[in-house]
């Protein structure tokens, strides 16, 4: 394996492949930064181009684009509260508050470093632990997916530590929105209120833009002077470089980076889970173990580092079941799978032996793509950041509306989805006023599908038992996840209680 790795590194250093990596990362970054145009769309657009390339070049281009798209999703998440991809939902929790405090450049630098570290660790996990992780994920049944979804929902305790009841109500509203449309078992249509376009459910991207971006647009339009005051520090004149201090600050807490990357790799290896869930779990874990959990949600830099490290690690992790078992973990992996098949390559052990050179070159190229994000991100990302910060609100607000319309419309080519997005945005704004955090609603929408599918499939699979629901409490991996859920829920409440008690004693 070591010889194959050396050969793969040498091959990746060739100018042709380096150029493809650069093009892939840049193109992916642009696609990822557009709300609604996910990594899947970017890879699908590149698919015809790969037909004209040899197998190695085609796969390298797709891998680089995938990595760049996941990274690019963080930009709009930070700058305008519009996660470019669902993998960057948690990045907005602290990224947008950082922008409002005039610290968007710091956030962009932090996510660049986090994405590189996460991407490289994900590839390391892919190269070193692919067979072990592949066997581990095969033990995940519907019950484990159900508990994994509940584990993600436990994050509500972190997101709404000040008003747990309202936080849980937000999560329940999200789960209810996820239940709109066709039921996963039986195929019955639920809660369509007589509207045909609701029969297919509410697309995640539409809800994401609606709940996060529309309220931000309403804030801009209703009080444009507030944004100008917030941006004043960052937009006015030359400032000392914050690149080195920020890099030092992020790297001074390596455990946050590494732990999040490991979460991303493992969750990425679970088919159907992917970056959408990994970034949320990593954020929650980062907050739980932080010395300053009360700063999360208010512009804590570790709060943008954790989800970005995790979601870029997902790229490598997602390739584990794909390359070893032929199971694509996420839609972008399915496109890579199709290219493998088109080139006559079959996933499995033979891919690592008979086609070892090609496979290792592809895997190493993803690490190269991660490293390439440093120059691309620091140049293009900071240029985007500066242009957004310096754009007057009277132009930024309509420009963001233009892009959100594209994102919502592109999902199903239906103007009704744009209407749906605006409606959800207005509802989200109202609920935010009532104290229900929009982040908890989005969390429910993201996790609703995995929770319900796990629940009904688990019940169906255990229908031979007298009490099918007991199967959710008797499987070893389920028990481990249940323990983590209890810890994840109780910890923020305990920390909050302890903090209040200390404050009481001091007074």
């Amino acid at each position, binding site marked *: 394996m070591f010889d194959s790795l050396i050969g793969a590194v040498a091959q990746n250093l060739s100018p042709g492949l380096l150029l493809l990596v650069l093009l892939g990362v840049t193109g992916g970054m642009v696609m990822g930064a557009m709300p609604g145009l996910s990594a899947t769309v970017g890879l699908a657009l590149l698919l015809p181009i790969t037909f004209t390339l040899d197998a190695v070049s085609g796969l390298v281009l797709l891998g680089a684009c995938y990595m760049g798209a996941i990274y690019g999703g963080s930009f709009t998440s930070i700058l305008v509260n519009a996660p470019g991809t669902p993998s960057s939902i948690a990045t907005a929790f602290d990224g947008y508050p950082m922008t409002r405090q005039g610290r968007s450049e710091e956030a962009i630098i932090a996510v660049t470093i986090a994405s590189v570290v996460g991407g490289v660790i994900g590839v390391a996990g892919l190269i070193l632990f692919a067979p072990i992780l592949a066997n581990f994920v095969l033990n995940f049944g519907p019950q484990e997916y159900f508990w994994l979804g509940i584990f993600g929902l436990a994050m509500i305790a972190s997101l709404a530590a000040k008003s747990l009841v309202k936080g*849980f109500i937000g999560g329940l*509203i999200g789960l209810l929105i996820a239940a709109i449309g066709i039921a996963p078992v039986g195929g*019955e249509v639920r809660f369509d209120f007589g509207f045909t376009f609701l029969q297919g459910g509410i697309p995640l991207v539409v809800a994401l833009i609606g709940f996060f971006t*529309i309220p931000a647009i309403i804030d801009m339009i209703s009080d444009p002077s507030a944004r100008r005051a917030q941006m004043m520090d960052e937009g006015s004149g030359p400032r000392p470089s914050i690149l080195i201090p920020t890099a030092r600050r992020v790297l001074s807490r390596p455990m946050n980076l590494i732990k999040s990357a490991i979460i991303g790799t493992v969750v990425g290896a679970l088919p159907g889970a992917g970056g959408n869930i990994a970034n949320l779990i990593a954020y929650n874990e980062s907050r739980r173990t932080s010395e300053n959990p009360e700063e999360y949600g208010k512009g804590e830099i570790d709060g943008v580092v954790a989800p970005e490290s995790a979601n870029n690690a997902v790229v490598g992790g997602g390739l584990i079941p794909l390359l070893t078992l032929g199971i694509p973990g996420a839609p972008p992996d399915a496109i890579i799978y199709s290219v493998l098949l088109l080139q006559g390559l079959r996933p499995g052990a033979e891919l690592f032996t008979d086609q070892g050179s090609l496979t290792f070159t592809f895997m190493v190229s993803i690490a190269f793509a991660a490293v390439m994000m440093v120059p691309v991100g620091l140049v293009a990302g900071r240029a985007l950041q500066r242009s957004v910060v310096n754009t007057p609100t*009277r*132009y930024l607000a309509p*420009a963001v*509306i233009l892009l959100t319309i*594209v994102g919502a419309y592109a999902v199903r080519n239906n103007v009704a989805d744009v209407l749906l997005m605006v409606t959800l945005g207005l509802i989200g704004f109202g609920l935010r006023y009532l104290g229900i955090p929009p982040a908890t609603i989005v969390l429910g929408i993201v996790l609703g599908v995995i*929770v319900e599918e796990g629940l009904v499939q688990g019940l169906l699979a255990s229908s031979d038992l007298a009490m099918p629901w007991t199967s959710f409490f008797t499987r070893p991996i389920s028990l481990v996840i249940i323990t983590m859920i209890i810890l994840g829920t109780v910890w923020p409440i305990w920390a909050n209680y302890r903090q209040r008690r200390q404050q009481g004693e001091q007074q």
Partner: protein
Amino acid sequence: MNPARRIGSKVSLETVCGAVVLLAAAVFWSQRGYTNPLAGYFPNTILLAMAAMAVLLIVRGIVRPSSAEDDSDAEAPAEVRLGGLAKAAVLLAVWVLALWFLGYLISGIVMFCVVSLSLREGSLNLRNVLVDVVISVVVVGGVYLAFTNLIFVPLPPGPF
């Protein structure tokens, strides 16, 4: 007490929140038309939990309004300017309606211009209007061409 945390003078925000959630749960409950029990486990559980939490909020808002007010969330805006909110809602609604009838390009140019002019401070003059019209045409036209001709993402077609 923060005036934004109260609606009217006697009803706490907590109670209003609970009532809204309870109403939403009731509306969804009335829409249950599924016959397969497996299709109902999940949404029924959610609706019951929502109703229970809503009742909890209402009771808490009535019994201990002061502690409920203190339980505010950091993300809630300190104050909502109703005029600004109405302006934003109307602009967004008109843009979506225009999108339906005029397509992305024409509605985009018109509404981009309207929004930018409405957010301008001070009095409007011909020069400002011309500048915003030119910027609207360039930005919307550029975005339209990039999506439709470069990355082949279809956008709402116009009437022509």
